[in-house]
């Protein structure tokens, strides 16, 4: 780790930051949990919490690579559309092209990875800013999903297909195990490998990272491809949970995912962020949604809360960071 020339401030400050933002967020989460639990006795039950975990897996899977991307100072707005495209490719390759279902699943994962790879390729080779590239593919991938499916849905999957989305394994929703594995892998990759340290280096100073001989373009290509692949996996889990395939699946996911990552303390300017923070961010959003819904707030009003929380948390994080930098 010492061979990677991280800017001095990061080394000095990362633990401070960790201590501050994520713990603060976790504390707020805890308080919110208790209040919502008092307001509604159905909220703080193991059944409900596990069920919320089930519902949030799809967003959680995408939030992990999104954390990587935002740490490098990039962004991926096309993830929701990739979910839609992958869901359609899964259903269509099975029902229309006649692929066996396991092959169809692999095919849709490959499509997701390819979609992410295209994002990464244009971002690294043509140097199109990630924001613009993924706005373009947000339209393109959703458009492909709509065009290919002509707004028809696919249903009637065999019983075993629903295992991941609906069954329990050792008393815990099956997809939560998937998410858990992904979290551990992402956490180790970010914290304990050169790959992870490279992400921070890119986010702090891309030019310096390049001159230090770090494979900047290759790492970027990997994370955008990974983002597409995870969106594909998320599509599989989603289709398995709701038992049908539609072209509008996953629309708006980018908002939830980015909100969770930014809420979790990852700086949208790059260079700062942890997987642990993202997890807290995801939990916070889902539990806020659920708690508000149980206490009688309508579904659409909870989006308002998430939007406000997103802006406010960036505001607080930004001013904390400025004070830390002594600006």
């Amino acid at each position, binding site marked *: 780790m010492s061979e990677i020339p991280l800017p001095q401030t990061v080394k000095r400050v990362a633990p401070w930051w960790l201590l501050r933002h994520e713990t603060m967020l976790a504390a707020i989460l805890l308080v919110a949990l208790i209040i919502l639990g008092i307001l509604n006795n159905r909220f703080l039950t193991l059944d409900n919490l596990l069920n919320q975990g089930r519902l949030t897996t799809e967003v959680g899977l995408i939030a992990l690579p999104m954390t990587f991307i935002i740490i490098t100072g990039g*962004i991926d707005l096309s993830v929701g559309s990739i979910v839609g495209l992958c869901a359609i490719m899964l259903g269509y390759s099975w029902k229309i092209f006649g692929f066996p279902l396991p092959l169809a699943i692999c095919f849709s994962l490959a499509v997701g990875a390819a979609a992410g790879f295209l994002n990464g390729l*244009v971002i690294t080779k*043509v*140097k*199109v*800013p990630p*924001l*613009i*590239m993924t*706005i*373009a*593919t*947000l*339209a*393109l*991938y*959703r*458009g*492909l999903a*709509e*065009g290919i*499916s*002509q*707004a028809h849905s696919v249903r009637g999957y065999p019983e075993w297909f629903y295992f991941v989305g609906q069954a329990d394994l050792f008393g815990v929703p099956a997809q939560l195990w998937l998410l858990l594995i992904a979290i551990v892998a992402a956490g180790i990759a970010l914290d304990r490998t050169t790959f992870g340290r490279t992400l921070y280096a890119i986010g702090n100073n891309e030019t310096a990272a390049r001159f230090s001989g770090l494979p900047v373009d290759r790492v970027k290509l990997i994370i955008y491809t990974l983002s597409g692949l995870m969106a594909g996996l998320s599509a599989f889990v989603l289709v398995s949970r709701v038992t049908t395939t539609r072209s509008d699946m996953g629309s708006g996911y980018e*908002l939830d995912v*980015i*909100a969770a990552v*930014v809420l979790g303390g990852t700086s*949208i*300017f790059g260079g700062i962020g942890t997987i642990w923070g993202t997890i807290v961010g995801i939990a916070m959003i889902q539990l806020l949604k659920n708690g508000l819904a149980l206490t009688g707030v*309508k579904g*659409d*009003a*909870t*989006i*308002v*809360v*998430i*939007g*406000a929380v*997103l*802006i406010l948390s*960036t*505001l607080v994080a*930004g*001013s904390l960071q*400025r004070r830390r930098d002594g600006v």
Partner: protein
Amino acid sequence: MTAATFTRDEADPRRLLKALASQEALLAIAVIGLAIAVGLYNPRFLATRNLSDVLLGNAYIAVAAVGMSMVIISGNIDISVGSLIGVLATVSGTLAVNGAPIIVTWLVPLVVGVLVMAAQGAVIAYLRIPAIVVTLGMLSILKGGLISVTGGKWITDLPDSFHLANIELFDTVPMPVLLMIVATILAAVWMRHSATGRSIYAVGGNAEAARLCGISQPRTTVMVFALHGFFAGIAALLYATQLRVIQSTVPPNLELTIITASVVGGVSILGGVGTVIGSSLAAILIAEIASALVFTDVSPYWIRAVQGTLILITVIADILRRRRMAGA
């Protein structure tokens, strides 16, 4: 006009002018060429009725794209505009149904639009939060707020006088089309020939250089967003008055269509370059393509794929052209 004219075109005025002119000329040719090609395949496409429907039904996108172009030229982005237009249209329609004077129903969306956008601009400029985060949050607030307040109920029984399309200049040019043309031309002239207009390019082209020339970046950002809100207000009016009902939800993916129009119109995504004439032409082109798909028996479900491809090609071409200019 003295301090503000130091943007890129000072370095190479002719080439920049040529590049801009070619983008606009290209779009105009594309608009006419597509009309002829589709007209040959299916003459009904060229019927006055269809062409005026295309213009009338999409004038609001062109007007909103004018404001969006300013935002992008200044080096920012706004993805909340679609939700804002939905909210403003609903506000205006609700006022009209409840018997407010027509002039009030037309003015309120403009004022609210300016206020909401200026507030966003202030948060972006003075609290230094990236535009993407602020506008993403605002999108979510406006969208969720609108649906939870109205329950998605349609607004009907709008008074006749509310409808701008009923007003026609010389009995031929309907108000929405007139507004689109006037807004585009005024904005284009203002941005090219006034010091304040030029400062938008200056801030987007090189914020540090602009600061050294005495242009306040935060103030310019707030101004650009306020103007963007004004155009969003006009767009909301056009949107609200084009049909007999207002759906009181956010039109899906409207912000994306507006951004596409700006970018395809030649507004550089890296800031500092572009014109609003190009973005209005692009808005017409996109609407024309959607209509052309219908008349050539292509499923309308492909429209977004076409849109995405269009924006992707323009963006890549823009970057490559810039690189060649920088290298030359």
